[in-house]
């Protein structure tokens, strides 16, 4: 469990994080979402004890992370995959980290296999693609088998296969009862991976809630429905307060969740061939809710 309590961090005169409070619970993949410059990385650094807070506190498992003399068994973290020494092999990089925490060499081989880098184990990291470096950073985070894992933009530079692998990994780690905290500025990625969200903008909390609840807050959310009985369903949906646009082969529904639409179809004995929440809905919710919070939102709306 990660707890951030009234956290403020200023660098010189610039406030990066402003009185931020939230809790990240075990057993979930929690997405940490916000536009560039919102303060995500700063928050992660303070949680890891790399930067000292100007005010407030951050704890992991109830204690400040810095109170540990060794960290890998408590928190596994990937802050920036580029932050490795290019002259070392993957094995050497991980071996040094492992040894500093009293972790044996066998574990290095295990995590390299886990992230699919066994064949590249003895190659110098400088020649790795960004996606391979992300895998190496994830391997480092896994070394100590920690109950809490934090990843800053872990899918940057990953190929589609890698993205699928990493989503599966994060969900598995959460299912094992770990706390998985994952920052990204890519809303669509969160939709596929996270079930909880912490959303910040300009260093302040915007939302901390289940991903679905956040997505539902977007008023422009749309659900695509295909049915052989469009007229019947459209009438039922409109009666329930939805706005329905009829296209030739589907209905575009606003104002009701897919769950509600499915329930209404069932109640009206309407056969459904498709019931899809538009994948941009989270993105749209994000854009709507963070509008005015973003530092670098230039003409994107």
């Amino acid at each position, binding site marked *: 469990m990660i707890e951030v309590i009234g956290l403020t961090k200023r660098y010189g005169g610039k406030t990066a994080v402003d009185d931020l409070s939230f809790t990240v619970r075990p057993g979930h993949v929690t997405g940490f979402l916000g536009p560039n410059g919102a303060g995500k990385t700063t928050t992660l650094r303070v949680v890891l004890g790399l930067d000292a807070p100007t005010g407030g506190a951050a704890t992991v498992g109830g204690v400040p992370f810095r109170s540990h003399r060794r960290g890998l068994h408590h928190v596994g973290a990937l802050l920036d995959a*580029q932050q490795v020494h290019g002259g070392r092999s993957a094995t050497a990089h991980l071996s040094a980290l492992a040894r500093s925490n009293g*972790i044996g060499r066998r574990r290095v081989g295990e995590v390299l296999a886990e992230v699919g880098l066994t064949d590249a184990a003895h190659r110098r990291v400088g020649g790795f693609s960004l996606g391979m470096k992300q895998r190496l*950073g994830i391997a*480092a985070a896994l070394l100590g088998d920690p109950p809490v894992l934090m990843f800053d933009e872990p899918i940057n530079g990953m190929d589609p296969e890698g993205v699928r692998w990493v989503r599966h990994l994060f969900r598995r780690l959460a299912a094992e009862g770990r706390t998985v905290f994952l920052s990204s500025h890519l809303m669509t990625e969160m939709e596929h991976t996270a079930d909880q969200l912490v959303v910040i903008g300009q260093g302040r909390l915007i939302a901390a809630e289940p991903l*679905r609840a956040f997505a539902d807050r977007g008023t422009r959310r749309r659900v695509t429905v295909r049915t052989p009985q469009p007229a019947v369903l459209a009438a039922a949906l409109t009666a329930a307060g939805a706005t329905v646009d009829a296209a030739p082969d589907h209905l575009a529904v606003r104002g009701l969740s897919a769950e509600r639409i499915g329930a209404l179809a069932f109640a009206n004995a309407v056969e459904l061939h498709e019931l899809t929440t538009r994948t941009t809905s989270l993105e749209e919710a994000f854009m709507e809710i963070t509008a005015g919070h973003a530092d670098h939102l230039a003409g994107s709306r």
Partner: protein
Amino acid sequence: MTTSLQPAPAVAARTRAAVPPARFADLVAAEWIKLWSLRSTPWTLGLATLFVVGAAALAAKADYDNFPFYEPETQREHMFSLGDAFPQEGYLTLMLVAASLGALTVVSEYGSGLIRATTAAVPARGAVVLAKAVVTAAVWAVTGIVIACGSFAASQAILAGRDAAVSISDPVAIRAVAASALLAPVCALIGLGLGVLIRHTATTMVTGVFLLIMLPTMFSSDKRWSAELGHLMPGIAWNRLVTDWMPPPHPGYFPATVTESWLVLTLWPVALLVPALLSVRRRDV
């Protein structure tokens, strides 16, 4: 469907391996792995050794060749012999290389950002700096001993051909070899301390070169205050310890004492590592 803000779902209890104790020896081993997993390390140490020993051999060869043309008194006293073993060009280079490699163990981590992974793995930052200092001191002490013994042996072997060698049993020769062996780890630790304090690669390197090479040339030995300041320089202290004879002090001439020079050499690393250890705890990484 309402996915919840409830606490964790029921999950299988995971058995975690016991957390191993935090041992300083593990940090030293980790730094050892880091140092030797870079190809540049053996190359740098090997080339530095060859260069310094080679410089001593060349200095001795020059005196060997010129020997027949020296005054009989010079031939008899052969005051040049110890100086040939520890030539300035060789040992100034050694100071630079040792300080740079010592600094690199730290600034390369800050430069690449690796320091964040290191610090997240070991939140006890002071212990990491100390472990780096232990590895740096050990590696450079061994290198320093090899270089000092090598340059003494090579130069004296050449000069023995003119019957102008200094014996290693000579107290001044022992002192000179010991001081020359000490010079490398001292400079490496100075570089490491500067690296922790400055963090920025280029600034650290320029500061190191200025402090070790340029600054000592700015002091004169004929003004007392200037000479006393000069005696605080590691290079000048080393120079005093490898010089077998100096005229006694008189007005307008203020040489450093041997004791003072030993103190200067040993206190430089301490004077930098103490503030380095204090600052590394406080600053953001």
